[in-house]
């Protein structure tokens, strides 16, 4: 059964080194929490400056909630093995995000698990350095 696993939020110690991978401030996100979204892809937009995913996730009462997941740009995602057709509407996925601090259904991307078990993440933005590829 599809389920929003808010109970799996865990505390991380990486809050102080979160870089600005977005066009906007990262301060909106609580980097000490992770929310695991188990749901269905509503839309996946492969575009600059940010790729985004909308995931339909039932809340605790069974009501469908659309979560907005913000990712970095395709430039960096390609380096991490992503493709524009890696997911499509209707796909069953598990997405882990750092949620916005307001409690609204929005978060910044941490990882994506596809139906076949493959796990995708982002890569650090270190273009021009030996570890950039």
């Amino acid at each position, binding site marked *: 059964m599809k389920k929003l696993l808010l109970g799996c939020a865990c505390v991380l110690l990486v809050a102080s080194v979160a870089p600005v991978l977005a066009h906007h401030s990262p*301060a909106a996100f609580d980097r000490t929490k992770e929310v695991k979204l188990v749901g269905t892809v509503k839309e996946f937009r492969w575009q600059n*400056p940010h790729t985004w995913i909308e995931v339909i996730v039932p809340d605790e009462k069974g009501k469908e909630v659309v979560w907005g997941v913000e990712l970095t*740009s395709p430039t960096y995602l390609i380096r991490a093995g992503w493709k524009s057709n890696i997911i499509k509407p209707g796909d069953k996925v598990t997405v882990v995000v750092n949620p916005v601090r307001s409690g609204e259904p929005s978060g910044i991307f941490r990882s994506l698990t596809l139906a076949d078990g493959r796990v995708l993440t982002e890569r650090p933005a270190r*273009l*021009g350095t030996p570890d950039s590829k």
Partner: protein
Amino acid sequence: MKRNARVTAGVLAGILASACSPAPATTPQSTAPAAASTAAPADAGGEGKQLSALAPATVARMAKTKAPFDLTGNWFIDVSQNPEAWRFGPPYPKLTAASQVHWDAAKKATAEGKVYRDDIGQCWPAGLPLIMTRYWPMAMVQIPSAIYMISGFMNSVRIVYLDGRKHTDPDIIVRTYNGESIGHWEGNDLVVDTVGFRGDHHWMDQGGVAIPAGEQLHIVERFRMVSEGKQLEIEYTMTDPEHWEGEWKSTKRFNRVDDEDIQEVSCLPDLNEHIKSTTSKTQILQ
């Protein structure tokens, strides 16, 4: 969005036209030592108009001076040692009262889990200096009379004139977020002086630190090549008496990126409908 695309296309077209022109030389390294005639001619275009930096006559005139280095390439802020290296502080200068109120408001907002006036996130231009250190590369194309910079972040265009012109009369300058940049060579350094900034929705930092950039902002950058041309170093000296005391100094390094090009990037009208954090209750917009 459409305006940005047109500006970018125009700049690129200009660069291509210049590169294809029959001017004697558009490559700095291939030219003769400086001659007295490289000074910008008064009333060069007639009726008081400045001759374009892309005019073949301007390019030819400036090509008489051999540039110490060529910035042409893609450059990306070096965050290999510090992921926060995109910021120009700490250290931060002593703020004026006009600026301190924003600093305090941002700290209070952060403590409450909110974001204070993140104008870049609302699609306002980052502007100088932040446009130089976004997490997207900046393409630079250098010709003898100018350097054209196009950021991978929103395709923001910055032009550094090298043709000997003076800053535009403050009474007629069109203020912008990247300002008006004029550079000259000092030994092996390129020194760029920038004024003419917009003073609204323009910030010196982001993400919990709010220091406004005002119309009095004046930025001097000293560019030099290091690490055998693999890195660009820029020393920043920034003043804005409305918002901080004295000189704010910071030195940044950028890595040359040879395996990536910038792409078309716009803050489309529907972007933030889907980047939901920017419209969430975390945002303090005023």
